[in-house]
Every structure is written in structure tokens, then in C-alpha cells.
């Protein structure tokens, strides 16, 4: 892109009228920039919804062993237990015969006092995988995928973007050509192919898809940060630090990167949601994960053999599908609100 974004500066809001006022407790604790960010997020109903949704998923992931107890102590946790091998899926609340967990969780007996045996709360897929177990433990897969992929892509993108933006010249030219090469692949196509090639090498696990999403996912961060650094490094305080003899590495780490990072925050938050969608899409296509791994995309993929009678077996799509949608929605709502708070073009304007 040829447009250079405006420098992102965070200072007290324009609608404060420029008057001097006492610093709030929040501002004293975290500084004015973060204070504005936090205040913006907790006062916007959309982002509050997003935070609530995301916290709910964190709760589900954390308490997965209580919500969906594994059949026994030595059970490989991420493997969905199956009630036999029959093809015909069972509807929600049907009885769990084989391979049922030893202990019926206490909360379940409190809700339905007369029920003594454990059931398939959300039904089963073909091959009798328990959907409830897949949805609950799938939250852990989702958090794992989004945290690992987002962290690694951010680190990779920040390094490349920072080098390109800070040094400019041939370093910039070279790195940006590399970015362009990666961008030449439609994201999901590149990830699909790399994940599929990595599967025989790494074995069926969570890693092939994760690595593939990292390799093809960092370019957005690099481009974004490069632009922001180009804008930030011309600012007075950076020039002042340079004039006072600061080294390049000190300038970058202390002054340029922290101040250019805020737009990247928005991207991180939006990516947390979209990574899980891509990850689920890959496992829906049968790439990477072993069969029966607790993952929302995998559970949905069991519906593919019942296209003509989907209305009977709606529970195979709807429960994990809603989980996926809500998880992505949670992060996107937070990211969208963050963008509004941080976007200098929209700030303080009552259009």
C-alpha cells in the first residue's frame, strides 16, 4: 500500500477540552494510555459482551474436568470418549451405556435429582463420540490454538516489521518482498497445504495445523507494524533520544516499538478469534488432528456423512457450531471496540 497511516499518538481525549485535571486512580496505576484503553473497553456494551463471552469460555476450559469428566483417571484427556461404535447418532439426553465416566458430576445430580446415570447431554456423533465432551474440552483446544498461533505470529511479525520499518532501505525492500511472497497465497490455501504436508512428518496432532497457521499468518502483523514504526520513528521524542546518543537497539525497544504497538493490539484481539475459525476449518477438512480429538471443527465434520438428514441430526452441527461462533464473536467484539478507541481518525470526532 502506498498510503502511510497517520501517527498514532495517545494522549488525554480531545473532548476533555484540554483542561488540566487530576489524574484518576486508574491513570496513576497504569498510565494515561492504558487507562483510556481500559476505560473505553469497560464502558462499551459491545466489548463488555465480548469480555463476558470470552471469560465464560475461559471458565469452561478451566473447569472442563468438572463439566465433562473423562471416563477414568488414565484417560487421554483430549480424546473424546465414545459410547460404542454404531453409525447412527443419538439425540441429546440419551443414555450413556458403554465407556461412561465413573462418577456422575455433582452439578448434574443437583439439576436433575432423579437422574442417577450419566447421559449424552448434547447427543453423539456417528461412531458415538460424545458431543458434550467435545464441546467442553474443545474450549481448551481453541484457547491453545489461538494463544500459541497469535503469540508466535505476533513475535515473528513484530521482528520482521520492526526491522523493516526501523532500518528501511534494502532491509525493508527485502523483507517486504518476502511478505509479498507469503501474501500471494490465499491464507487458508497455504495453511491447508502446509498442514497436510506436515502431518506425516509430525504425526496426527495439534501441531501441523498450528505451525501452518503461524507460517502463513505473520505477514499482517509485519505490514501493520512497519507502517506504524515508519510513523513513530520520526516523532520528536525518538529524535531526542537519538540525539542524546541512544543505541539503535535501545531506541527500538524502549521508544519506538512500545509506542507503535497499540494498533497491533487490535490486530491481536481480532486474530485470537479468526485463528480458531481457520484452525477449525482445517480440522473440519480432516487435516492434522487425530480422529476423535476434542475440537469443535472435528465434531462438526462428523455431520458431513448425514447431509440429507441434517434436520434429524442438527445437534452435531448446532452445539459445536454455536461454540465456535461465540468464541470468535467474543474476541471480535473486544477487537472492534479496541479499534474504535485507538483509531486516531475517529477519535474526538462527533460526525
Amino acid at each position, binding site marked *: 500500500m502506498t498510503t502511510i497511516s497517520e501517527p498514532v499518538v495517545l494522549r488525554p481525549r480531545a473532548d476533555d477540552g484540554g483542561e488540566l485535571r487530576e489524574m484518576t486512580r486508574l491513570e496513576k496505576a497504569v498510565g494515561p494510555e492504558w487507562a483510556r484503553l481500559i476505560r473505553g473497553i469497560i464502558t462499551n456494551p459491545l466489548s463488555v459482551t465480548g469480555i463476558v463471552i470470552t471469560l465464560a469460555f475461559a471458565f469452561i476450559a478451566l473447569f472442563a474436568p468438572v463439566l465433562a469428566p473423562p471416563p477414568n483417571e488414565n484417560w487421554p484427556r483430549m480424546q473424546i470418549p465414545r459410547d460404542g461404535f454404531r453409525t447412527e447418532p443419538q439425540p441429546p439426553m440419551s443414555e450413556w451405556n458403554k465407556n461412561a465416566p465413573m462418577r456422575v458430576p455433582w452439578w448434574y445430580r443437583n439439576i436433575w435429582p432423579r437422574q442417577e446415570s450419566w447421559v449424552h447431554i448434547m447427543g453423539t456423533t456417528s461412531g458415538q463420540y460424545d458431543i458434550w465432551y467435545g464441546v467442553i474440552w474443545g474450549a481448551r483446544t481453541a484457547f491453545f490454538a489461538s494463544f500459541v498461533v497469535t503469540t508466535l505470529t505476533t513475535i515473528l511479525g513484530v521482528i520482521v516489521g520492526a526491522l523493516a520499518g526501523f532500518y528501511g532501505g534494502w532491509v525493508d525492500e527485502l523483507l517486504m518482498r518476502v511478505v509479498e511472497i507469503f501474501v500471494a497465497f490465499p491464507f487458508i490455501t497455504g495453511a*491447508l497445504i502446509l498442514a*497436510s504436508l506436515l502431518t506425516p512428518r509430525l504425526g496426527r496432532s495439534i501441531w501441523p495445523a498450528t505451525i501452518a497457521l503461524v507460517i502463513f499468518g505473520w505477514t499482517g502483523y509485519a505490514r501493520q507494524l512497519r507502517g506504524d514504526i515508519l510513523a513513530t520513528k520520526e516523532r520528536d521524542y525518538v529524535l531526542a533520544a537519538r540525539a542524546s546518543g541512544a543505541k539503535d537497539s535501545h531506541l527500538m525497544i524502549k521508544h519506538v516499538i512500545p509506542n507503535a504497538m497499540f494498533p497491533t493490539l487490535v490486530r491481536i484481539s481480532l486474530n485470537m478469534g479468526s485463528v480458531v475459525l481457520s484452525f477449525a476449518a482445517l480440522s473440519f477438512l480432516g487435516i492434522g488432528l487425530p480422529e476423535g480429538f476434542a475440537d469443535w471443527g472435528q465434531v462438526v465434520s462428523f455431520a458431513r456423512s448425514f447431509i440429507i438428514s441434517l434436520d434429524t441430526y442438527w445437534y452435531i452441527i448446532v452445539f459445536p457450531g454455536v461454540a465456535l461462533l461465540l468464541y470468535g464473536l467474543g474476541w471480535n467484539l473486544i477487537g472492534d471496540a479496541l479499534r474504535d478507541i485507538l483509531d486516531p481518525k475517529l477519535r474526538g470526532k462527533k460526525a
Partner: protein
Amino acid sequence: MTAYIIRRLLILPIILFGVTALIFGMLQVLSPVERSALYVRDIPKTDRQVDAVITRYGLDKPFFVQYWNWLVGTVDGETGERVGGVLRGDLGYSRSGREPVIDVLVRRLPATLELAIWAMIPVIGFGIWLGVKAALNHNKLFDQVARVFAIIGWSFPTFVFALLLLLVFYARLDWFQPGRLSTGFSQEVIKPGFTQYTRMMTVDSLLNLRFDIFIDALRHLIMPVTTLMVIEVALLLKITRSAMLEEMRQDYVTTARAKGLPEKVVTNRHIRRNALIPVITVAGLTLAGLMGGVVITETVFDYPGIGSWAAQAAASLDVLSMLGYALFSAVLLVAANLIVDVLYAVLDPRVRLS
């Protein structure tokens, strides 16, 4: 502007070189023995046969030698003929399609193009219309609703949405079916009486004056097109909206208003014209976005294009088909990028002059 276009064209070979190197680099994940299986149709049985293949195709040679061989092909030691070579159009043999990769690609491409074109029209129309309307009603009800819809569309997993469509409109109501044509018609289009000019069913049926087939083809396109729309409209809406909002704050808008121009003229002649420049370039890129989106959409709707072929190839580790698809979509995307950049320069004098 000529200098700018020339500069873009000069970078092009570098990017294409990088793209092919990256594709070939991904292949290096497999060991020489695994790769030897890609070059021969019958899987070699003994170690000696495997070794022979590895030596013959130089699969144990350094990366750049192998890359060069892959690009231009190798000369057969016995016959002296040049075999293989991506640059010569030989993308290898598709295991899942049981024919050369290039043939599968050519045969399946029209179906995907048809889908992509039918999806482009409503995506661009709706996306721009909604984006402009949302910006003009900034922070009012329409804007908020559009925004929430965009976020939901953005968060919706494509395959779940597609399956929900199938649940309601196929399994329950039986209004639309998956696939490309109903069984009866798909028999009819391969009969001698029906000429396949473009291999795009909606076009061919009209050229053959078969309106019943046209309607049938359209009915099969509705669900996949809707699925592709949900994601892409959200993206275009977002971009149009922020481009409009940015132009609305520019000084020339204030000037136009100060001159006493009616609001309609200010909006249509000044704001929208300038805001649509970046939007048009993004619209060009949605074609590329659709090429990625078709992988999932075609798979769920059992639509016989290159997307579902790529998904099958990836699931069954048909490596050469996958690489052929990757190469094709990358070249398409690079071309789209180039056209978009040039278009941008033509439309926006600010780019030309800087």
C-alpha cells in the same frame, strides 16, 4: 505513472520466483523416499527401484538443483527427452484425479469461476451499498445494526453456516440441493445435443437456449453464493464505511458545503467518488479472497470446482495436486494484486504524483 507501472512489473518476476520457491520449499518437508513416490504412478516396490527413482530425478541433490529441475524438467538419460518442468506446464500427475494435474485444473476451473463471478456481483453491490449507508448514518441505528451484522458475519465459521443452510433449505425444505446440476440435467449436458462453450453452466444453458437448465444451475448456485457472501460482504462493508468516514472529514467537503452545494451533491459527487477509490481496489481483491473461500464452500456443497478438489487432495495427501492448486491460486492472486495497484494509480492522482 508509467514509471510506477514499470516498477511494479519489474518486481513481478521476483515475486513469482519467490512463490515457486516457497511451494517447492514446502515440498522439502517430505523425505526423498516419500517424494520419489510422487514421480511414478505405480508405487515402486523394492528399495532398488526407489533408489533408482531418487537418482534419476536427483531427489537427493541440493535444494537449488532440485528446484531448477522442478522448474524446467530433467533430460531423460536414455531417450534424451526433456520430461516434467512446471514452466513447461507439467505440474505432474494427480493421484486422486487419475490424470495430469493441469488437466484436472483446466476441467474444474470453469465451475469455480462461475461460482466466484456469481458471488462477486452481490458481494460488491451489497458491501458498497451497506458501507456507504452506514457511514452516512454514522453512529445512528443503521450504522450500529450494520456493524453488529458485520462482526457476526466476520465471526461466522464458513462451514457451519454452509451446513446450517443445508440443514434448513435442503434437508428440511428441499428447496435447493447440493451439487452443480440435478441428476437428470447433468446427464443431458454431456449429450451431443448440448454444446459446452464455456463449461459454465449458467452461460452454456443460455447459449443452448435451455432455460430449464439455466434455472436449475442457478438454484444450485444460491446456497454456495450465499455462503461466500456472508464473509466477504462484512469485509467490504467495513472498508467502505471507514473510507467514507475518512473522506467526510476532509477539507474539500467543508469547502463544498460552504459554497452552498446541496447535501446530495456533496455526498454523491465529492465524498463517494473519492471514498470508492480504495474500495474498488479491495473489491478486486475479493476475487482472490473468494478463491480461498471456495475450498470450504465447494467441499460442503459438493460442488465440483477446484476448491473441493484441493480439499480432497489435501486430505488424501495428493501432493502434486495440492501444489498445482497452490501455484495456480498464487499466480492468480499476484495478477490480481498487480491489476489493483495499477488501477489505484490510474484512479488516484495522489498515488501517481508521490
